[in-house]
């Protein structure tokens, strides 16, 4: 299944919160949704969750517009908002039971389903506790369990890791990996970019409601680089390898960095593979040959200006 966003716009009085946003999320993908505060992430997620209507543009699930058929869309979407569950005077089990009833899940199936969800999200031990007594991490797990009640194909998560301690964040990450392996498409907004880069298969960067970059993590992290930085670590003679590399096509800006040689390489992956073959054939012995990756944080800092609307 495919969740597509096409030319999405949303206006609030004079403010254009989302401007011509286009991207897609496929089943099994974990897409990181990155942008400064006020960039339009929450608005986009709320439109995708059918809570708000777009001013123009479309959000479709397998070609079917969610604004025209919101009921059908809701069966395929789970939404984890940035706020934690607010029904403080209900227990975890009652809260999940309430939403299962709201999804019209028949009684015969509902009890088993809630038990399974509680087990999956590690809530079984606290199911009778009142929500008000739970920690942020636990409440977040309740929120995720609630979003999974209707077994959605797509999960939209707005800052799910905000305020969580390291253990809760790791648990959340693991949970998302499992959900992704189950074939669910996940769109997750977060400010913790290092974590996003670790679990996401693709990323989407927006600022002032506009799309700045969308692609696989590799495509995004290679953003703005005409030539990639190549790192080579030989155990043989460094100078001999330098002399060899200078003559190779596509290689430039060669520098010595400790025990490593670093250079810009403008060739494709196939060319790099050929280069490696030639180095080995020339009897240079290597223990490392890789491209240096930009991380998501540096890409984010490079392409956003930190402006809000």
């Amino acid at each position, binding site marked *: 299944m495919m969740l597509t966003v096409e030319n999405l716009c949303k206006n609030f*009085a*004079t403010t254009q919160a989302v401007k011509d946003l286009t991207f897609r999320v496929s089943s099994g993908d974990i897409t990181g949704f990155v942008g400064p505060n006020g960039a339009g992430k929450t608005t986009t997620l709320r439109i995708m*969750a*059918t*809570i*708000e*209507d777009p001013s123009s543009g479309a959000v479709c699930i397998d070609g079917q*517009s969610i*604004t*025209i058929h*919101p*009921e059908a869309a*809701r*069966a395929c*979407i789970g*939404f984890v*908002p940035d*706020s934690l*569950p*607010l*029904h403080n*005077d*209900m227990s975890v089990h*009652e809260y999940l*039971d*309430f*939403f299962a*009833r*709201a*999804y*019209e899940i*028949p*009684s*015969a199936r509902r009890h088993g389903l809630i038990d399974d969800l509680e087990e999956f999200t590690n809530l079984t031990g606290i199911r009778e506790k009142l929500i008000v007594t739970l920690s942020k991490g636990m409440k977040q797990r309740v929120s995720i369990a*609630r979003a999974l009640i*209707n077994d959605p194909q797509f999960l939209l998560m707005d800052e799910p890791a905000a305020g969580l301690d390291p253990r809760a964040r790791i648990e959340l990450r693991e949970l998302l990996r499992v959900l992704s392996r189950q074939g669910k498409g996940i769109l997750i907004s977060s400010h913790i970019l290092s974590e996003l880069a670790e679990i996401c298969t693709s990323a989407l960067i927006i600022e002032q409601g506009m799309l700045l970059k969308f692609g696989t993590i590799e495509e995004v992290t290679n953003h703005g680089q005409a030539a990639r930085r190549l790192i080579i670590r030989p155990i043989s003679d460094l100078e001999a390898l330098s002399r060899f590399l200078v003559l190779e096509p596509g290689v430039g800006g060669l520098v010595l960095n400790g025990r490593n040689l670093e250079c810009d390489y403008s060739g494709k992956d196939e060319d790099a593979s050929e280069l490696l073959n030639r180095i080995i054939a020339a009897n240079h012995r290597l223990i490392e040959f890789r491209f240096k990756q930009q991380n998501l944080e540096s890409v984010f800092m490079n392409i956003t200006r930190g402006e809000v609307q």
Partner: protein
Amino acid sequence: MTMMETLYNRFDDLLNPIIVKELRQVVRGKFFWGVLLLFLAFQCAVLSLSIADRGMSSRSIGGETLAFLFGILFFASFVLIPIQNGFKFSTERNDGSDELLFITTITPETIIKGKFYAAMVFILLLFSAFAPFMAMTFFLSGVDMPLTFLTLFFALLISAAGAMGQICFAALAHDAQSNKAFRAIGGMAQMMAFFAISGTGAEMVQYGPGRFMGSSHAGLLIVSVILFCLAAVSFFYRAAASIIAPAGANRMLPVRKCGLFIWLGSLILSLLWAIQENSGKFLVSWAALICVGLVLATMVAVSERDSLSERVAREIPANPLKKRLAFLFYSGSAGGLAWVVLIMLITLLTMNFFPRALGLHQTGDLPDATVAILSFLGYCIGYGLLASYIRRLFFSSLVDIRNTWIIMFLVTAFCSVVPMFIWAVTGSDYELFLLGNPFIALSRDRSDAAQAFGMLLAAGAVFINLPWLKRQLNEFFKAGDQNG
């Protein structure tokens, strides 16, 4: 699975999820139990004192005690529980916790029904708790049992209308400011209604049927009260469900349909009263009530969206006749105003037709009432359209279209009060300075100028808004053609 389990599961599946949630929360909460215990204790005290006082007091001690208990019960069922229920709902609306419900498959109607049923369960529990104490008064003197049951039945119906009314007010709250404003207005309206109704109810209980229901009117009066309460419940239900429905949905269709049914039902009831009393005045009163409803409908219409949502556009029928009808009933500012004008004209025609056709007496007021209602609604439609124009011209970026009714209110207040202030300062011609006030149209000693002003205001406002109205009409019809 045993048959019992299957039956239980079937019953469980039928339950409205909101009721289950509300009951669970109430069982945990302190409010309901607090109210119940407090009033039970109070009743025990009242009944004990009444019995102790039996020998010394009047022969109607039972009736007096019953009236007192009725007052307490009605206060709890009509004021406390509906206001608390509404407050809880508005808090949920305000903190956004109801939003998550909208992404489930639950409908706005189910949510409102759930809130209403939950309130009714508590009201019924309260009635059950009061019943033994009220029954005890029968053993004292001066109690008319059939009338007591009738009064309690009325109290239950009126409490149901009150509960739904409070849910409707609560649904209007969409942020902290509007929450406070609408809760305050809702609370005050409920209190005013309580004082207006409870006096009559208590007197009915205390003094018996003869005082209120002459033998020829009793049946019609009972039917009128029942129909009035049912109409209020169904209208508030439709309105509340529409308010919480997604902005892009065809929200006004059920409300306008319900409005039309209430219009029709109230007309039939008014005709029955008019025939029974052989008086055309009942139809004038009916038209005046419809006029009040149309003023509110105008405020809503100018605050509706003026562009078609995708969902509404898709629902417009291609058939030319159905498309024209749909324009009047579907969500949209221009359609809403057209609906108001149409109902107004039909109401005035009906008000003038039936008294003459049925040969009723007291039809002398009809021409005067027709002009008064027409001018008054002319003022309201004029100010509504003027407010819409002002918002689009000067405040489109500051004031959301859904708040146009506030500008309408301000424009009306400005045009009514400022000229009066100038009059007070300058001492100029009296009536000229009162022309801006819509209520002058209802005054008996108004001049022709006052009558004409309302109509001219409406015509002028329609003229300056013509391109806006025409755009909406064209957009609507074009969308209908595309569906064909």
